[in-house]
């Protein structure tokens, strides 16, 4: 029995955990308890659709798609510090690429998925070119231009996009197995979101991710440590847009219909809100933010339903409150917890790290 086990406190996370190699020290889940927590969460995610109402499973599916897109935007804005208001359009590029490839050219979903990611990455990198010269708000304006141009293309390149009528997509299938129910989509999305999550977590703790953060924190110092700013900024745009493309593809094949109004500037702003509320520069936070932003309208709707008995006109009021709530939440987070839900989650974990002897 290793010496550590005898001293281990069953509650305190790090008590009696000795790290003897750098591999152990750098592991994502270095302690037995954090591995246990991971396993428990995985079990919950796997079992959830078997017990929940299909409606809730469909909500989870929407969250999963948004999470992939939000992780992508966070890599660009939260980690590299490049503000983008074009994310919704990059998601659209993915959706339309995959829509065109599968419905017009008969390419299978599994091939179209990475291709759509790559197409979005190329377009994203292209619109990231101004980041060489522009920073902050000016770059935001340049990405806003990307949003407008891509939206215009979606409406007017009818041969490929179907114009304002949009495109009809099919559900993905594997062999004879068709992903045509909420539960089937759920497991597909769960696997892809997990992959996207792990990839981003690994990326941000290795060379490229560190270079991203260096550019965000101090671009001058990054340059003299040998980081080619332009190269890495474009790479951040490409990786971020790849995520967007994948999210768009899933969105399209899940709803089976896409049209330009899904990928407007308000989509872009919603994604920005997700990463601000979730936590800029935090991969886990992107998922929290995606969940939060997806659940808020649902909760509001639930609230208005519950109150119509007492206040018959409450529904119109609350519908009007929707946009207001988004705005208010962002402001509240910026003032009280600028590091977002991820920081709150960390605070909870830190409390239990030393619990019950936190002195």
């Amino acid at each position, binding site marked *: 029995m290793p010496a550590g086990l005898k001293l281990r406190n069953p509650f305190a996370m790090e008590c009696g955990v000795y790290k003897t190699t750098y591999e152990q020290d*750098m592991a994502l889940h270095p302690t037995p308890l954090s591995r246990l927590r991971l396993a428990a969460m995985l079990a919950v995610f796997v079992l959830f659709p078997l017990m929940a109402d299909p409606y809730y499973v469909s909500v989870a599916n929407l969250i999963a798609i948004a999470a992939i897109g939000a992780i992508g935007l966070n890599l660009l804005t939260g980690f590299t510090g490049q503000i983008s208001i074009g994310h919704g359009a990059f998601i659209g590029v993915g959706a339309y690429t995959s829509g065109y490839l599968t419905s017009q050219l008969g390419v299978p979903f599994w091939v179209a998925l990475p291709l759509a990611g790559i197409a979005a990455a190329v377009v994203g990198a292209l619109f990231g070119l101004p980041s060489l010269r522009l920073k902050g708000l000016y770059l935001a304006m340049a990405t806003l231009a990307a949003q407008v141009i891509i939206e215009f293309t979606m409406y007017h390149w009818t041969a490929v996009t179907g114009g304002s009528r949009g495109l009809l997509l099919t559900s993905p299938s594997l062999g004879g197995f068709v992903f045509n129910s909420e539960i089937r989509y759920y497991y597909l999305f769960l696997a892809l979101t997990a992959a996207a999550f792990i*990839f981003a977590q690994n990326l941000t703790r*290795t060379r490229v991710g560190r270079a991203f953060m*260096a550019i965000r*924190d*101090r671009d001058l110092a990054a340059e003299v440590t040998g980081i080619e700013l332009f190269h890495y900024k474009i790479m951040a745009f490409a990786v971020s847009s790849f995520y967007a493309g994948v999210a768009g593809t899933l969105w399209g094949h899940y709803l089976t219909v896409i049209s330009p109004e899904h990928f407007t500037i308000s989509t872009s702003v919603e994604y920005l809100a997700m990463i601000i509320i979730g936590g800029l520069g935090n991969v886990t936070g992107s998922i929290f933010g995606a969940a939060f932003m997806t659940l808020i309208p649902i909760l509001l709707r639930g609230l208005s339903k519950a109150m119509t008995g007492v206040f018959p006109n409450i529904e119109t009021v609350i519908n009007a409150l929707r946009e207001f709530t988004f705005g208010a939440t962002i402001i509240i987070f910026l003032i009280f917890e600028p590091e977002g839900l991820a920081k709150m989650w960390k605070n909870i974990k830190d409390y239990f790290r030393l619990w019950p002897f936190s002195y």
Partner: protein
Amino acid sequence: MTPPAGQLVVEKLILHFGGLTALSGVNLEARPGEILAVIGPNGAGKTSLLNCISGLYHPNSGTITFGQKDITKMPAPTRARLGIARTFQNIELFRHMTVLENLMLGRHIHLKTGVLAGGLYWRWAQSEEVQHRRVVEEIIDFLEIERIRKKTVGTLAYGLQKRVELGRALALEPKLLLLDEPMAGMNTEEKEDMARFILDINEERGVTVILIEHDMGVVMDISDRVAVLDFGRKIAEGKPEEVKENPEVIKAYLGGKDLQLTVV
């Protein structure tokens, strides 16, 4: 290490900002393995000179040669790859990252992992991280910052931040190290520590050091040679004791003709 590796030659360097002349024809040579101090009154052009050497400013004319290479037109990251590292007068660390991450960033040019390998954390991405973590831990050991290795840099005290910044420059394994006021704002004890680190880096690793410093005591103690800038010109160069006696230098610092520069 072969002798010319850390050699830097600056010739007739001229740098204007609009109508303002920051450097007007500066010649400077840092010999391999020496500690060269650059001193001068505020606004003399010391930091501008360092910025030209590290590639943040591009001079209007003149040449900069490092080793055998003309680096005048090279972008900053390429110069870092050749082995030029620096610290800044106002600490320029990556504030939201930990000490370990900052030092690992110092090793950026020695790492190879790309997006795919990094994202998948495939076996060799991990082994590369571990291998360079070892190097970084040696620097942490050398600078005696073991206790703060996982702290976020922005939360550290000023003196420690200066030390971490030195560590980041060191992680690059430079042949030439540019230090812009490494002791500014430090107390005597911290200054002594810093001086010891600089001497050790110079002696044990054979790194050429160019040092800007206002503390004359430190400059006279640790540097092999001293160059004095005033209004963008080099007015004196030589051994510390020679420079100390130079009337031009005394004039530049004190403005008078007959005054003596007193060094404590």
